[in-house]
């Protein structure tokens, strides 16, 4: 059904779906380390940013096709993620300290990117539209729809595969009680590292889509804390550590964000309304549905049946 949808949608609605899929993809990537393994990274924008910059710079300066560049970007993000994970996990940083470490790295990336003139500095990078699919550019916006959908499905397939294997069981044990997991033989450091690397790789791959969908990159947006918030809020509202949490979360939040932007931003000065909605939702979720929407829906369906 999702495959046929673009045929009947207006181009605006296609855009809304692209955002739903893409943020669900980023949320799913975050979910692996933040949801399943319970390591609250609040700096995932760093991985989007380095992935996006790697692919864009390689494309602009070396002519490398983004179809390859996206994997280079993913790899660079994975190296960064591995480094942050190594520092955080080796030194036993938990809770707020880990949150702050991840935020600090994202902010450092932002500041550095702002100051590196050869990647555009604070002005950022602009990609000229050529419409060449080989350069990840498409005349028909529906192409982006299918790519975003594909990314979301692929990340979900990865998450599903992890969930079914020892990897996933170990991650959930780590999330629930790291010490108890160690006691029954789970090498917690190694598995947290795996989770961080897989998650940052996928997020970095998403950076390519980000860059070539928007045609521009600015350090303050692509590395900014607001993007990190966009990434984590969907899986949390949908249900962190559940397979469909990020998708459900994105279907709830992305259209909501679009609608408020559409209705309020048009009047001018109302740009923050969708973020107010996010804030209220976060508070409501934490206070009343700490497990997120998916487990709640599941319980609801069970009692109905």
């Amino acid at each position, binding site marked *: 059904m999702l495959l046929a949808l673009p045929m009947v949608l207006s181009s605006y609605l296609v855009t809304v779906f692209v955002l739903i899929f893409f943020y669900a993809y980023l949320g799913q990537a975050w979910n692996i380390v933040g949801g399943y393994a319970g390591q609250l990274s609040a700096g995932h924008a760093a991985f989007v940013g380095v992935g996006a910059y790697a692919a864009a710079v390689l494309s602009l300066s070396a002519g490398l096709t983004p179809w390859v560049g996206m994997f280079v970007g993913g790899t660079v993000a994975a190296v960064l993620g591995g480094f942050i994970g190594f520092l955080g996990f080796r030194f036993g940083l938990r809770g707020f300290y880990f949150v702050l470490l991840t935020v600090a*790295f994202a902010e*450092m990336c932002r500041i550095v990117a702002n100051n590196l003139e050869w990647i555009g500095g604070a002005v950022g990078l602009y990609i000229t539209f050529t419409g060449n699919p080989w350069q990840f550019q498409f005349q028909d916006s529906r192409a982006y729809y299918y790519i975003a959908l594909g990314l979301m499905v692929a990340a979900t397939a990865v998450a599903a595969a992890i969930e079914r294997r020892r990897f996933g069981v170990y991650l959930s044990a780590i999330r629930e009680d790291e010490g108890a997991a160690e006691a029954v033989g789970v090498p917690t450091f190694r598995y947290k590292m795996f989770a961080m690397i897989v998650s940052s790789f996928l997020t970095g791959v998403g950076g390519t889509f980000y860059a070539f969908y928007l045609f521009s990159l600015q350090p303050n947006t692509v590395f900014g804390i607001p993007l990190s918030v966009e990434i984590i809020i969907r899986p949390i509202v949908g249900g962190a550590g559940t397979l469909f949490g990020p998708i459900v979360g994105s279907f709830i939040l992305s259209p909501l964000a679009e609608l408020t932007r559409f209705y309020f931003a048009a009047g001018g000065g109302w740009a923050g309304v969708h973020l107010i909605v996010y804030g209220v939702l976060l*508070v409501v979720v934490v206070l009343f549905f700490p497990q997120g929407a998916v487990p709640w829906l599941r319980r609801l369906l069970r009692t109905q049946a």
Partner: protein
Amino acid sequence: MAEGLRAEQVRLPAPQGLILDPVLVVQAVVSGLLFGGVYSLMAIGLTLIFGVMRVVNFAHGDLMVWAMYLAWLGATRFGVDPYVGFVGAAAILFVAGFAIQRQLVDRIVDAPHEMQILLMLGVALVLENTALVAFGPEPQRVRTPLTQAALWLGPVFVDVGRLVTFAVAIALTLALSLFLYRSDIGRQMRAVADNGYGAQVIGTDVRRISALAFAVGAACVGAAGALVAPLLPFQPPTGLQLSVTSFNIVIIGGMGSLLGAFMGGLLVSVAESLGAVFLNPSMKELVSFALLVVILLVRPAGLFGRRAI
């Protein structure tokens, strides 16, 4: 988004290369130190809230930005100078802090750390973006005659606005210390921070003390916001930057340590000021982040150890 922070921190010509001109160093240190009083006050508010409740106030910087807007409203609508208006801003934030603790934080004090972080992040988003809706995205700045004046101590330039801000911030910090060390309520706050269970056993009303601690912490950041409003152009996203800076300071100084927050505030401000002079104004935050990462890895308890408040 922190354009203002960068531009206004140090009013100096750009240095030519990395020459360690002693006057330049002294200038940067003085400038940073004077600005640091506000950082200290802001961080003390955060550390007080953390010490008593073990809750990290992610909305700290946004409360501060609201205080800045209150100072701005006071100055533009009612002609109240921010160096007087900070009292009002602190009072309003006191009430807001009390309400946030009672209505929200109190429900989740026993929840996992992650949940508390997300809740306060939600509050932060609401505060920041209501400010955006209410006041718009343009940078604002509060004018006061004091910021126009300057003093020269030999070759070193001293901004009078900064000096007054520093003096008031230090006076408030001293007043707060007196409150915490001499008054009964203040001692109860320190007792709850030191050993919450012990405080409960001897009959302390821990809920009430927690709400008051959140209120006092918010009042601190409120005063800090109003006092810095004449020095620092601000816009709603400044709150996020200030939150992150406060976190840096309290981790560097030591979570929950009052002395750590105070010294950390001065240290971070001086480090940023030096960074702005010797690296590049826009790189100054890099210095405090680098400092943060080193502290996190080498001495996570912070420079001033793990004393309760």
